[in-house]
């Protein structure tokens, strides 16, 4: 991994912010000839305040609902000018799964040459942790104080339905895997999408030093499956391949997180069933059954 840093000192990220950690690896992989497009999200704040910036590539802040469309315009203009500059969106789950889903869908459908990275901290983090479409079943947020009654929106299957040439999942707890996937995404012409699980200490209510550990527990329990799908061909990534041979109980992932405190057995059971179903589906797809 290159030593050059593009996320510099002076960010206003919370201690233990894994979204910022993921951005560090994303930009190391993308390199200096990159424009970062950021809709309203934690990264709007994390990048620093005018007249300073803590990110060493151009950061274009755009309207909340517009990441996909803004990237479409920028990518088309740069390609028209004969430039190969990477156009990388760095957007949260709210800006991707909820308010920005239309613009994302449009950009994917139009075959826009860009990489869309959704860092998913499973709530509206920047406004203080309100429920989003990305919030999992049973998780407490400031607007679901009793736990979210609905399941997490499956953005990956929505994106997959657009048949982008490359899509993947990742987590900052596995930097090499994330780095490699960003490199691959940017080497492929057309739209690519990487869904990054971004554990959030204040939002998920766990100690700041545990972000990497929580990310690993997510993968080891099968809550988060690392995979990539290149031209429709699915491949489970090696950390998940290893972990899923002998997954840890879901409770080990949930226990350190205050947002799941007091989760009822019925909800826990549904979560477990959904994990199993997802693993089954991915395994079938990988083996070419479906």
């Amino acid at each position, binding site marked *: 991994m290159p030593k050059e840093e593009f996320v510099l000192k002076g960010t206003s990220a919370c201690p233990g912010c894994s979204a910022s950690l993921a951005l560090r690896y994303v930009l190391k992989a993308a390199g200096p000839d990159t424009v970062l497009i950021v809709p309203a999200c934690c990264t709007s704040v994390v990048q620093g305040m005018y007249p300073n910036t803590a990110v060493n*590539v151009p*950061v274009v802040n755009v309207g909340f609902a517009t990441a996909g469309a803004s990237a479409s315009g920028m990518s088309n203009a740069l390609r028209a000018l004969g430039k190969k500059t990477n156009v990388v969106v760095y957007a949260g789950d709210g800006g991707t799964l909820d308010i920005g889903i239309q613009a994302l869908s449009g950009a994917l459908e139009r075959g826009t040459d860009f990489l869309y990275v959704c860092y998913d901290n499973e709530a509206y983090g920047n406004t203080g942790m309100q429920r989003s479409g990305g919030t999992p079943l049973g998780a407490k947020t400031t607007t679901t104080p009793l736990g979210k009654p609905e399941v997490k929106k499956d953005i990956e299957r929505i994106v997959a339905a657009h048949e982008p040439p490359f899509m993947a999942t990742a987590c900052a707890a596995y930097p090499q895997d994330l780095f490699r996937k960003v490199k691959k995404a940017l080497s492929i012409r057309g739209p690519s999408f990487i869904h990054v699980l971004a554990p959030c200490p204040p939002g998920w209510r766990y100690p700041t030093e545990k972000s990497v550990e929580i990310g690993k527990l997510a993968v080891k329990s099968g809550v988060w499956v690392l995979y990539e799908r290149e031209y429709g061909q699915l491949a489970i990534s090696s950390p998940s391949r290893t972990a899923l041979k002998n997954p840890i109980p879901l409770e080990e992932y949930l226990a350190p997180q205050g947002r799941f405190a007091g989760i009822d057995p019925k909800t826990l059971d549904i979560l477990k069933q959904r994990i199993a179903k997802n693993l089954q589906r991915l395994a079938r797809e990988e083996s070419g059954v479906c």
Partner: protein
Amino acid sequence: MLTVATGNKAVALAVKQAKPVVVAIYPITPQTEIVEQIAQYVSQGDLSARYIDVESEHSAMAACIGASMTGVRTFTATSSQGLLYMHEMTNWAAGARLPIVMANVNRAIGPGWNIWAEHTDAMQERDTGWLQVYVSTVQEAYDTTLMAFRIAEHNDVLLPVMVNLDGFLLSHVMQPLDTVEPADFIPPLHLPHTVDPKNPMGYGTLTGPDEYFKFRWDIERSMRDSLRVIEAAHKEFFQRFGRTYGFTEDYRCEDADVVVVSMGTLGKEVEVAVDNLRNEGIRAGSMRLRWFRPFPKLDLMNRDVVVIDRDYSFGFGGVLAHSIQAKNRTGVFSVIAGLGGQEVTYDDIAGFVKNRHIGREYWFGVSDNV
């Protein structure tokens, strides 16, 4: 070259000649002919632009913003609901100081669904930092679209420009059109804040209470400077192509006792009304306002003023009437007419002048007012 075209086609022709690099448009009646025409130019190779088939107007403006930030010329077009839908991003375009040119085919706002002419759509954009110009003929739509690129991209302006033309009354009306070769009338665009990975900067970064207002003032300063840039563009256009434009188009105003102020195609009806009134011995004149933002100083002293608004601000009044009253400190007879394509003839307008009642508002066609 002499030809015949609709208002929409005239706009598309001017855009083709201005050679934007990126065009992002979403179809909407009565603008659709513009999107279709430009798509055809691109597909035939007559216009070498990236044409982005966006999935909404909000995305159309966002895509133009993204493209414009790379320093290239951009264009979009919309109407009514579409303009309202992109409202968040029209603010963004001006705030980001991007010289995007947009044609807005003025149309009423639902409900009920109404596809006919009204200016309330664009009036709701008046505080966004966009320059706004209203045209009345096919020729003017063409000429003004060419000028819009030059004015928007001028280094002392760098603000987006909206060219407004009345739905159907102009967008779909065939009139003679004399096209020109713009050549360097529209100089190459040099955006000083072009995004450049060799010089990484933050764009639209979080800006605190100690700094934000300075950017707002900067927009207003450029808006004021644009008065001079517009005037110069009018002058240069006349010198090159022989057609005269101003902030207003005045018709028989010099000795007028009563002046009718209007915008868009209504202004042409007013001119006929003025001729007829003068035949009856009433010294009337027509002042058709072209530029609504920046709002020019109007010469309306010492005469009666009748203002026709094809728009309305509920709980307040006709936007044009009140703008004129505020800017000129003069009383006016405010007529609200032509909403949602309501037919307004020159005889109706002559009637407004004869029955004027300075200081009052009159809704044309409504029985329980005045």
